[in-house]
């Protein structure tokens, strides 16, 4: 089997992709992918090779991904808006046989001698070369027929600190999540669905949930190259979008815009992920558009779906129920399940759990057990109805005089001060209390104002013992604050 086959068995004239003002039918997509497979094979790339695919949400990027999977090679996708040092670092972590660039990544060719890679090619170059006539050929080149355990994606999951983690996901991992989504009645995906793809296709959610699953059911994927409310509004109306997935920042932008109240009237599914959706934003969105945002939880290492709110009542603040087929247990450090209602580390077993980190069995052995349990490092708690709530990262918990302090709680209080722009809270060793809370703050607030604000809103053991006022806080490529940089 090969997940590149998701584009097969659909009416040839149905629209598969919309992007950059053009549409690609399933028939065209199959032919172009076939031609690209032939060109890649002629270039000496085959099963088991690693291909760094650089692009944005663009048709060439989708084509490259599907073609590379189709010859049994592994796709390591990264964004073309990465600065050169990031591209260099990521290429070094992958050590690819080929660096394959979509149109937006053309700039990389000028630096190819400084980027690790045995060979470099533009997608357009391969499509226009000696095999270009294949683009219209009715006879398709064969798709590599591999095993479920064969690797499909090599996904970079780290931020800026240099410790690249490359998660290995197999065709079986991805296939399982796709079947779950495409066959589940509560999700109810059909070939009539039109997915607006705002999230980057270089991340597991964009790749597997939005792109590959929508193609699998024969629906249409509308690629939005760079999110803006105006562009989204245009695409939602023009393309009759039925499903949208986004991050809280996206929903916030819609709430703050002058988008009409019936913007999402024909959208069946609105999903939020990547960061906790504040209860106020959930309510504001519902009030503004009369639509509910459903939250879910997942990680690159789980392909990614772990929980969702499909087919159940949405509870603000919760990421929903574990999906069928996923075992989720909350445990103490020694693997013992916590008592009902208590918080513990989220540990997962499912057919979506990844194959480990590339070339790093040592790192893999810190999170994965031989019997298939993946220790996420996230702390969560179930309510009596089986809804999961996320608390914080286990490594970030600060213990002050024996009491647990969750940085996210302190950060949210600090951020509620009107003069605070950003806040990152970490622990530091303290002679008397074991650890103490240190707040890094950007914005205009003074230490006195911050102290007063915390004293009014937090219990004493949660008060920062030190405030560091900074101009800028470290954030990851996806905009998440990076606590580990400040620890």
């Amino acid at each position, binding site marked *: 089997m090969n997940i590149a086959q998701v584009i097969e068995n659909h009416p040839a004239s149905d629209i598969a992709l919309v992007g950059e003002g053009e549409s690609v039918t399933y028939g065209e997509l199959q032919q172009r992918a076939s031609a690209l497979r032939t060109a890649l094979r002629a270039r000496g790339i085959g099963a088991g090779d690693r291909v760094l695919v650089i692009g944005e949400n663009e048709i060439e990027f989708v084509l490259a991904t599907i073609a590379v999977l189709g010859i049994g090679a592994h796709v390591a996708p990264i964004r073309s808006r990465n600065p050169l040092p990031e591209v260099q670092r990521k290429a070094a972590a992958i050590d690819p046989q080929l660096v394959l660039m979509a149109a937006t990544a053309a700039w990389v060719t000028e630096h190819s001698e400084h980027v690790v890679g045995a060979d470099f090619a533009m997608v357009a170059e391969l499509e226009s070369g000696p095999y270009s006539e294949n683009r219209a050929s009715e006879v398709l080149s064969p798709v590599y027929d591999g095993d479920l355990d064969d690797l499909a994606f090599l996904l970079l999951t780290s931020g800026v600190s240099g410790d690249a983690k490359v998660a290995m996901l197999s065709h079986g991992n991805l296939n399982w999540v796709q079947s779950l989504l495409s066959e589940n009645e509560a999700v109810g995906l059909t070939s009539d669905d039109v997915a607006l793809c705002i999230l980057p296709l270089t991340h597991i959610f964009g790749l597997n949930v939005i792109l590959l699953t929508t193609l699998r059911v024969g629906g249409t994927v509308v690629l939005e190259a760079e999110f803006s409310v105006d562009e989204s509004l245009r695409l939602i109306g023009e393309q009759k979008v039925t499903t949208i997935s986004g991050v809280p920042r996206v929903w916030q932008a819609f709430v703050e815009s002058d988008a009409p109240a019936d913007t999402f009237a024909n959208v069946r599914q609105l999903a939020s992920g990547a960061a906790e959706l504040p209860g106020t934003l959930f309510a504001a969105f519902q009030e503004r558009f009369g639509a509910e945002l459903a939250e879910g939880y997942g990680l690159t290492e789980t392909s990614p779906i772990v929980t969702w709110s499909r087919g159940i009542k949405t509870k603000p603040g919760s990421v929903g129920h574990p999906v069928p087929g996923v075992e989720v247990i909350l445990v103490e450090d020694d693997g*013992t399940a916590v*008592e009902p209602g208590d918080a513990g580390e989220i540990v997962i077993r499912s057919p979506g759990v990844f194959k480990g980190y590339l070339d790093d069995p040592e790192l893999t052995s*810190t999170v994965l057990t031989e019997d298939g349990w993946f220790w996420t490092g996230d702390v969560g708690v179930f*309510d009596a109805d089986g809804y999961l709530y996320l608390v914080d990262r286990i490594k970030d918990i600060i213990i002050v005089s024996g009491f647990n302090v969750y940085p996210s709680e302190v950060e949210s209080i600090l951020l509620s001060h009107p003069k605070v722009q950003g806040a990152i809270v970490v622990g530091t*060793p303290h002679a008397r209390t074991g650890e103490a809370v240190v707040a890094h703050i950007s914005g205009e607030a003074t230490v006195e104002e911050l102290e007063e604000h915390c004293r009014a809103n937090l219990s004493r053991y949660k008060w920062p013992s030190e405030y560091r006022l900074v101009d800028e806080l470290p954030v990851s490529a996806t905009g998440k604050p990076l606590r580990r940089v400040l620890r």
Partner: protein
Amino acid sequence: MGLGGDFHFEPAPDIPGSDMLSKIIMSALRRTLDLLWDVEVTGRDNVPHHGGAIIAPNHLSFCDSMFVPSALPRRMWAIGKGEYMDDWKTKHLFPALGMIPVDRGGGEAAQAALDTAATVLDAEHLFLIYPEGTRSRSEYLHKGRTGVARLAARCDVPVVPVGHIGTLAIQPPTGVMMHINKPCTIRFGEPMAVSDFGSPDDPRVIRRFTDELMFAIAELSDQTYVHQYASKDDRPGVLAPSAPAVTKPGAPSPKVSVPKGRKVIDRSDTLRIKEPDSSNSDRIIDLRTPSAETPGIIDSKLHETTSQPN
């Protein structure tokens, strides 16, 4: 010094226990305690004079259930073991002290206890619950059970944190005798409302409230806090390994394997006191409020004896 202050006796004919006997016994008990022990009560005004409220003390000795009720300005109730009702010595005395017998063991008993408590609170009376769930054999203050928070949310009543010091010396767990003339301090803290912490439907809110309640109690009782439930296998200064949670039949296995290469973050330092390091004290804002006595500070006993769960 002394229990002092007014004591308001609330008749409650619908709740188990004779009003008449209770009135006599409470009055006698208050006088006896005042006479035999050096009792000091602070923060008594923090106990609401009207309406339902949960009284949440630390639990060290059997006699806590005499000293705390006697220090309150109002009559109160609590759950007690059903077997006391089989003993002629206790079957009238304990209900008169506010004990409502509930047979222990099993989920049904827990539900019955919760329903009983709700009845008392809905009738606008005080109800006492030890949030640690059992007497602390380690002498530390343990992680709180979330039942207090859930009950407070269900009945929409405040929770009064209570810290007491001295009952362990008055009645050590090894003996039945009570040693007279010893001091006992009972401190009532400011009432806390679950609704101030967020929606009680969110289990994180319930846990946050519970942790902060335990922090308030730790400040009042001067105890060292340990984020582990009290166990009957704890010994003074020594924590028993945490037992696997009891799960329903058919539920996933209560224990999963641990990744071989996993490094458990050594947080043992957080359970130890070290001499204050003057070299970095200038950059640390003192966590203590000027008036408090060093609450939250780790007892020096702990680092010699603490055993962390595996």
